[in-house]
């Protein structure tokens, strides 16, 4: 025999599942929204420049300059446009036909062979500063290769040999780290939206008022919302992870168990945030607006998934600590690319647990069986 409290809880949960089954919008928010967002972002956000249109200006073609320019023509990074004069190349840059110019002046070979150092003019369009820096890096790489292979010398030869090694993502594919970050961002949004909208809906339709005058306790109402939407949210998470691994080919080095466990903590924090929002805003319109403003933007900008947190002003860095996505981004990037790195996972998981406890606690404290 069930106790009355359990009977109430199961009754509410059963109701919730029946409603989810009949209401396509909950399923859409849980499964379709993450998938669509992941597809848009996954394809749309990339920091890997390929086929950068580059202008080559060789004022006096000869064997040495040809050996240099052929390096560019074989590079996968660039798509070469040749111009006869620097003026023509600059016009092409203004017209946005090319992103950068490599310019060999007419005294290039003479200077290089007479012992002076010949300057190679490199002009990039600096408007997109990040892209410009990446293009500069690619040009530098080509130049180093040319020095080594064609002239048998080293870039800083004979002074220094610098070997960079990029761990966890040796091919330096930006998608591999962007996608785990995107999952964190998207799940913050859907988690908060799910609970915020369904509770606001009960307020709007007047059913909450009817519930509150029964023997049901507020904690039972909250728990009955939390459990079904937790399951839904984890389903959305599974969809996202599958897309990441099977569609976008992101390696998953860590264990699924750790991924599930940390996702649980994160989902509780996100759902708790939604519960808290729905306690403040009692209609779906306002709740939706608050959920979007307080989750989407902070998770995008302040979670460290694209923009480096250490480089932000001190005050902004402090704010990032209250963004749950920040911790989840760190965990996901490690689990996907590096494996079960406990020194990252444990502190961040602890932070998520604290946030989940705070949000759920606040939601519970805020949910009184009263309308005022």
């Amino acid at each position, binding site marked *: 025999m069930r106790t*009355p409290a359990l*009977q*109430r809880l*199961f*009754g*509410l949960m*059963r*109701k919730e599942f*029946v*409603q989810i089954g*009949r*209401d396509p919008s909950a399923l859409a928010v849980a499964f379709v929204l993450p998938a669509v967002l992941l597809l848009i972002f996954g394809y749309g956000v990339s920091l890997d420049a390929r086929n950068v249109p580059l202008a080559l200006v060789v004022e006096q073609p000869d064997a040495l300059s040809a050996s240099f320019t052929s390096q560019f023509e074989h590079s996968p990074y660039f798509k070469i446009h040749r111009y006869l004069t620097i003026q023509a190349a600059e016009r092409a840059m203004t017209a946005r036909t090319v992103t950068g110019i490599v310019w060999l002046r007419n005294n290039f070979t003479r200077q290089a062979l007479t012992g002076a150092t010949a300057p190679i003019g490199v002009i990039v369009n600096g408007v997109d500063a990040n892209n410009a820096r990446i293009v500069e890096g690619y040009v530098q790489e080509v130049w180093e290769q040319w020095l080594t292979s064609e002239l048998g010398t080293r870039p800083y030869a004979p002074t220094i040999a610098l070997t960079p090694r990029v761990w966890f993502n040796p091919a330096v594919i930006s998608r591999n780290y962007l996608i785990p970050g995107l999952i964190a961002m998207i799940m913050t949004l859907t988690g908060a939206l799910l609970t915020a909208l369904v509770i606001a809906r009960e307020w709007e*339709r*007047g*059913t909450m*008022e*009817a*519930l*509150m*005058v*029964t*023997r*049901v306790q507020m904690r039972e109402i909250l728990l009955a919302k939390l459990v079904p939407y937790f399951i839904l949210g984890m389903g959305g998470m599974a969809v996202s992870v599958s897309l990441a691994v099977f569609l976008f080919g992101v390696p998953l080095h860590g264990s699924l168990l750790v991924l599930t466990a940390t996702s649980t903590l994160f989902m509780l924090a996100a759902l708790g945030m939604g519960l808290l929002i729905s306690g403040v805003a009692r209609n779906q319109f306002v709740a939706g607006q608050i959920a979007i403003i307080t989750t989407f933007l902070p998770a995008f900008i302040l979670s460290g998934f694209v923009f480096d947190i250490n480089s932000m002003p001190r005050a902004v860095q402090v704010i990032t600590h209250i963004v749950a996505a920040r911790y989840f981004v760190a965990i996901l990037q490690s689990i996907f690319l590096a494996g079960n790195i406990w020194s990252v996972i444990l502190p961040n998981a602890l932070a998520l647990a604290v946030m989940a406890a705070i949000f759920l606690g606040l939601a519970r404290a805020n949910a009184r*069986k*009263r*309308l*005022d």
Partner: protein
Amino acid sequence: MPDIPEPAAAVRLENVRRMFRSGKRTITALDGITAAAAHGAVTGLIGPDGAGKTTLMRLVAGLLRVDAGRIEVLGIDVGRDPLAVQAQLGYMPQHFGLYEDLTVQENLNLYADLQGVPHADRKRRYSELLHMTGLGPFTARMAGRLSGGMKQKLGLACTLVQPPQLLLLDEPTVGVDPVSRRELWEIIGHLTREAHTTVLFSTAYLDEAERCDAVLLVHEGRLLGSGPPGTFTAEMTGRSFYATSGIGRRRLQERLAAVPGVIDAVIQGSHVRVVTAQATPPEPASLLADLPDLALIPTAPRFEDSFVARLRTRPVPPQMSSATAPVASGAQTPHADLRPRSKTDAGAVITVTHLTRRFGDFVAVDDVTFAVARGEIFGLLGANGAGKSTTFRMLCGLLPPTEGELRVSGFDLRTAAAPARGRIGYMAQKFSLYADLSVQQNLRFFSSAYHLHGAQQNVRIDWAIGEFDLANLLEASARDLPLGYKQRLALACALMHEPDILFLDEPTSGVDPLARREFWQRINALAESGVTVLVTTHFMEEAEYCDRLVIMAQGRVLTEGTPEAIKASARRTDHPDPTMEDAFIGVIEAASARAAA
């Protein structure tokens, strides 16, 4: 009249006060309410919209806390222990609190789980409830697909799965047809008789007072009176009359309303119903000396008479706190300053022929035909979902008909050029105004929209401000206006361009009796000056103001005629003076009998 059982009261209110903050303003929703509801009785909480009924219900249910005073429910202080009260309570909020995407059975199961009904008892209880509400055949239907009356009964059944000691029903009869309303009252009667349930029932329909054992009459947060409904009507004995005269009921009503000593004069059928300030029967000659044919026939007082009398005699509160601030009494003809209109042009201004509108499989309006003559007040009467709003929207050109034809002064407004629309005035449901705009800005916008400008526009705005007594409120946002003033402003906006035809959608819903009287007084004057008025309403009693009306149900016109003729059709030997509601129910029952045959 059953005696109110002594001694203990099920609900006891002591000096209850409750305020709300809205932006910078503080609104007093309830103030100084001291009252009681007896055990085992039906206590009606009666008042117009904004009176504080819902707030009081929520206070009793423990959903709100009082700012001052004390509420005791079933011997328990609600403020201290709301859970203990809620365990013995059944509460049906406005709009019934149902999950529309669950079936009837699933709704019942949920509330049985929440109220802790043991599984063993459920089968018996469900069959009792389904039998009582007549929902037996519909257990697998989604609650959202039930009619208004069925939703109301399901809502009630859900609150009754565990028989409560005290049943709180917040406006359960809003949007429900008269037949369902009557059935609800039968269920309530059954509950109090058989189960001795105490019922607190809130409503804005004054005619429901007479069905209660006791009444709490609230208005603007204050208690205007309490006691058995008989005590309200008793004090009005000998003060109500039907007046008739050859000058026509509208002129007569206008004249009588202006006579000192007459506190109420309303059109009812072909008569004018008059309520006097004194219980001494007046000499007809002393009322209006120039009307030798004026006749007065005494009639039984109504609950509404008492409400009107209380509102008229109470001290007038300062400035805008009241929707019923004194209106310059006497005849006010909004169009008095305009060209006189002749009523000689008797051709039909509005014609509707075989009008049908379908939404998918659902037939909202089914082969409707009627015509309205110039200067006529024509009513579309029916419950929510009867199809009157759909008909109305098609007439205004807001919705294309599926079949049939309609003409408004010769045009189909849907395809008509803009000038044709300039001849109609339109007042939407719930007095839709731009809530964030001030009174003045609303007037200015609507007059501009109707192509008024320059000096003419200013003249009309000044007219509206004077006519509708809006001078003190020009800067107030429409949102903050009391309901009666919203209604005035909505009418003013619809009249800015002096339309020939006026469309009114539920124009008096929720306003208090004085505001309603004032409103109809203006409409009468407009009709007298030749304006054609088409009005929809679900207030049976409001139909009395119409020259002619149609009664609609399930998309069809069931009957058409003058109020007198429609009421006469329901006259039986055992029921010599039927009300419009009796007639309505009679028509509906006759229609379903025909359908069954």
